């Protein structure tokens, strides 16, 4: 397996006297040098307020920003750069969508369909819309393998459905949603489809055109970019008819004392000074991923996940959630140790330098549905190694002893 760790300075550090074994990439990815350096270089060489100045530096800052938009457009296969709106993160993307699309195009008696797999960010905004507009929020539930069965899609998406917003990959179970089927059914009843790509775009290629989704959202920080930058993709036709959300500088054409006219896309949705450094960062991250190649990312992660599932399965007191198969897990493994609370597990393995997540993973309705209070979650990215898995399993084996159980 190729070694990608060397590009990531944080993966050379130690924690509690042990080399860091970072297994929480589903929460946020670590950053490679080319990304960190691209952002620093922007501030050292090109920084200015974009769109606002006539001078060379501002033109270059504007170009840096707009070229980043173009990089992202290509990266996700969108048709026009106007369809790429830079936001802060996935959460802001969905709030923008809920406020500007949901509050205006969903009404009394309409139905919004999401799944029980959703992260809170693609869930609470729709609760808000449903409540404000007198619409109904419906859930697609999952089978034992953690997947959305066809019947749910067939039965829950109806003529009343106006919007279906679905996670592409579950951040708890790693399962991949049947986007094609959902899009087909949703479009057949005239509903639009929004896709939460926060957990998919780090791991495999997204082509919004091929997927046929109307909206897509993701965060830079989960795909190697700095925090503070995210994306909302929307079909031009839909974005065009949506009213502005944030108002202020740069999203206007003319401003009068009591009124204003909005700028065309994408400025319409980008009020105030934008995060150019962040945009440069997400473009650098996309380039880095392209350089590695998604096929290598998939290969590495599949091997790692398979190896980890095998090793974890040999430990009798570990329960793994979701599908048993390593394919289509996107590097996410949720599990529990008998009698051990996930928080204790996380603390104990942390003493050995291993960073895993414990808790509800911002998916409380899913955990409640699974009858769980909390789980441990180890999530892999292509920079992890077989050795990381070994160290994880070794540390997990010590947990029950630390908690006073025989073994």
């Amino acid at each position, binding site marked *: 397996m190729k070694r990608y760790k060397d590009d990531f300075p944080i993966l050379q550090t130690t924690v509690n006297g042990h080399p860091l074994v970072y297994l929480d990439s589903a929460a946020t990815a670590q950053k490679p040098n080319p990304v960190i350096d691209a952002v620093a270089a922007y501030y050292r060489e090109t920084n200015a307020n974009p769109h606002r100045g006539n001078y060379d530096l501002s033109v270059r800052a504007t170009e840096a920003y707009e070229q980043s938009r173009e990089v992202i457009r290509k990266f996700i296969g969108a048709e026009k750069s106007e369809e790429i709106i830079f936001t802060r993160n996935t959460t802001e993307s969905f709030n923008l969508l809920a406020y500007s699309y949901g509050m205006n195009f969903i009404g009394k008696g309409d139905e919004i369909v999401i799944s029980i797999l959703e992260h809170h960010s693609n869930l609470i905004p729709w609760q808000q819309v449903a409540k404000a507009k007198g619409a109904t929020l419906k859930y697609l539930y999952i089978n034992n393998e953690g997947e959305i069965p066809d019947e749910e899609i067939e039965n829950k998406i109806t003529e009343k459905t106006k919007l279906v917003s679905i996670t592409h990959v579950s951040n708890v179970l790693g399962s991949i949603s049947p986007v094609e089927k959902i899009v087909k059914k949703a479009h057949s009843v005239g509903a639009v489809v929004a896709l939460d790509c926060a957990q998919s775009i780090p791991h495999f290629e997204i082509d919004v055109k091929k997927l046929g989704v109307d909206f897509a959202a993701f965060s830079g920080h989960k795909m190697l970019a700095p925090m503070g930058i995210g994306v909302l993709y929307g079909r031009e036709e839909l974005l065009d008819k949506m009213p502005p959300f944030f108002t202020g500088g740069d999203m206007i054409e003319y401003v009068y004392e009591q009124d204003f006219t909005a700028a065309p896309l994408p400025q319409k949705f980008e009020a105030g000074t934008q995060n150019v450094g962040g945009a440069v960062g997400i473009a650098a991250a996309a380039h880095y991923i392209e350089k590695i190649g998604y096929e290598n990312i998939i290969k590495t992660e599949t091997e790692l996940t398979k190896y980890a599932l095998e090793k974890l399965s040999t430990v009798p007191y570990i329960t793994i959630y979701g599908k048993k198969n390593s394919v289509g897990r996107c590097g996410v493994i949720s599990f529990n140790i008998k009698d051990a*609370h996930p*928080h204790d597990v996380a603390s104990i393995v942390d003493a050995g330098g291993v960073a895993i997540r414990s808790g509800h993973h911002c998916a409380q309705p899913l955990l409640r549905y699974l009858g769980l209070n909390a789980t441990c979650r180890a999530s892999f990215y292509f920079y992890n190694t077989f050795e990381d898995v070994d160290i994880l399993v070794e540390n997990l084996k010590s947990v029950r002893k630390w908690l006073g159980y025989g073994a």
Partner: protein
Amino acid sequence: MGLEDIYTQIIMEHNASGRNKHHIDSPNLVLKGVNPSCGDEITLELRVKDGKIEDASFTGVGCAISQASTSIMIDLIKGGTVEEAKEHIKTFMGMIRHEITDEKQLESLDEAVALKNISHMPARVKCAVLAWHTLENALAKKS
């Protein structure tokens, strides 16, 4: 700071034993304490009479730290007066916040001193203080 300074023999035993984890007869002070960010939930049951805590127990879910901390607290306050319990809460919180470091002063906490080092695991402090906060609220409600 080794793990053994947090996951001590005392913590392990209290967590595993479940000695104080049950219902009591005719409790007259019942309060639920929650830690939303962890999902920990404990319910304290107390029978208080004439300023004395005659009996105490708890139920609920949580990590070893919160379970042990609750159990240790119950050992400490059961049979004592409400005033003593309040004093213990104050001392315990002082210890956690590093405001009280004097060994002599901490002696009154008995086994709860085992949680002294929890501040080295900032993410777990909330687990350690959940029961004590809940007791504080319960006693404040009573008076």
